[in-house]
């Protein structure tokens, strides 16, 4: 066998990268639990990540609710089952749409922002400046942002779900003249505690992933301004990819424990 065909350098580089990611994650857990704690910075990041994303999340949640209801109605109408719309929408939004749409929006908006911000700080030596003044940049920049995304993505997911259900209600009310009370009762009658818990857990995992990927890419940026662009871009691509992988794994696990 021709050993020149095997790209040993690339394989070694890939393993090195995996090891670096592992070290980065371990460093996060080590520094997250050790004092001093950057509470002020965590709250500031929660504000930027959470509050500043509310408008976008409202819009996407509302449109998702309306569009999904509009798209589902004809299929159910064929069987005379439009009364099932609230249950169907409730299950779809809580179990899948709200966590996934929130995660994708967060990956695009928050992940790219973190990657670009830390990348730009890195190439302009601001991170080195913190390091040489003993200011613990990892704790200040990485730990605070990852904690903020891990807390804020679930909050945004819940908000997205509520807005989506409201959007759906407006469409159902417009067509079927269903009252708000009946709609909500029907929508939530099919949703179990497991559905809500699994969605919150999913959102926690997605939030952690988005924060961690954005910080890793930004914190390790090289190659100047071109590197900043690459960091922002790959923060989005990698976190979206990981979100889908995690979605698949979590759905498998939840389905295996869901009572039939």
């Amino acid at each position, binding site marked *: 066998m021709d050993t020149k065909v095997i790209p040993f350098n690339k394989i070694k580089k890939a393993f090195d990268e995996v090891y670096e990611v592992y070290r980065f994650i371990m460093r996060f857990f080590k520094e997250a639990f050790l004092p*001093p704690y950057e509470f002020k910075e965590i709250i500031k990041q929660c504000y930027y990540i959470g509050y500043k994303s509310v408008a976008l999340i409202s819009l996407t949640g509302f449109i998702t609710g309306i569009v999904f209801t509009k798209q589902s109605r004809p299929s159910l109408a064929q069987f005379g089952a439009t009364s099932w719309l609230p249950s169907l929408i409730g299950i779809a939004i809580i179990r899948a749409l709200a966590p996934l749409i929130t995660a994708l929006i967060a990956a695009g908006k928050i992940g790219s922002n973190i990657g670009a911000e830390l990348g730009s*700080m890195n190439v*302009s*030596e*601001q991170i*080195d*400046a*913190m*390091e*040489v*003044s*003993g*200011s*613990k940049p990892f704790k*200040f920049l990485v730990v605070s942002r990852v904690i903020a995304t891990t807390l804020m993505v679930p909050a945004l997911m819940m908000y997205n779900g509520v807005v989506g259900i409201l959007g759906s209600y407006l469409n159902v009310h417009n067509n079927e003249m269903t009252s708000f009370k009946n709609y909500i009762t029907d929508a939530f009658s099919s949703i179990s505690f497991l559905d809500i818990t699994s969605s919150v857990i999913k959102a926690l995992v997605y939030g952690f992933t988005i924060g961690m990927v954005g910080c890793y890419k930004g914190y390790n940026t090289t190659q100047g301004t071109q590197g900043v662009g690459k960091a922002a871009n790959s923060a989005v691509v990698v976190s979206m990819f990981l979100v889908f992988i995690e979605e698949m794994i979590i759905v498998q696990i939840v389905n295996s424990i869901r009572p039939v």
Partner: protein
Amino acid sequence: MKKQPLHIKRDKVVITIKDLEKSFGKHQVLKGLDLDVFKGENVVVLGRSASGKSVLIKIIAGLMFADKGKVNVLGEDVAKLKMKDLDELRLKIGFSFQGSALYDSMTLRENLEFPFLRSRKNADKPNMETTIKEVLEDVQLLEAIDQLPAELSGGQKKRAGIARTLMLRPEIILYDEPTSGLDPITSVEIIKLINEVQKKYSTSSIIITHDLTCAKNTGDRIAMLVNGKFISNGTFDEVFKTSNPDITGFYNYNFIND
């Protein structure tokens, strides 16, 4: 402009570099450097761009690690220190970056508060406020205290970077190209500031530069870095009183082409 070295204590070495080597891939940047810096002394490391000058001070500050050799700062072997001890040592080392490296989302005041608050467990606010005003007066930037770095000129940014290092009252300051990108008048202001800081704060410094005016006017001693080695070490006149083409070429190029 440059004074006689009044403050240098030749019996006390603050930085010792022994047989330092550093490579990036196959390219060896530093090829066995030796250097001592005495207390109160300004040592200028002079060399062309990409000669490894910045790498040298990054190794001193523990931002990079050498492949071989020893760097001893204030009695501590930098490479052997644990993170906690390295952070403590770094509080005694100020680093003025080439691009100033000011935190661009913070005002000048916040830039100065940042290292102060994190380095002192019970930082008292009135003391911090006094220190901020004192260092800003020293660098003549008090009027810009609430401005963002984007609103400052190149020279002001350099001053602000120096002010931030002074917040922690360092014993050693490492200047990375302090006059690069500045007009001649602003360069002279920065040169004066470096000398004033040395006097007022009794600091020892390593000044990385390829600017001969800066080297001549700030350096008590010049170490000439060529091809990864110090080829000459002494006062400005001693270093440039030579027929070595690497040194005379550097000198002629600086002045003839200016």
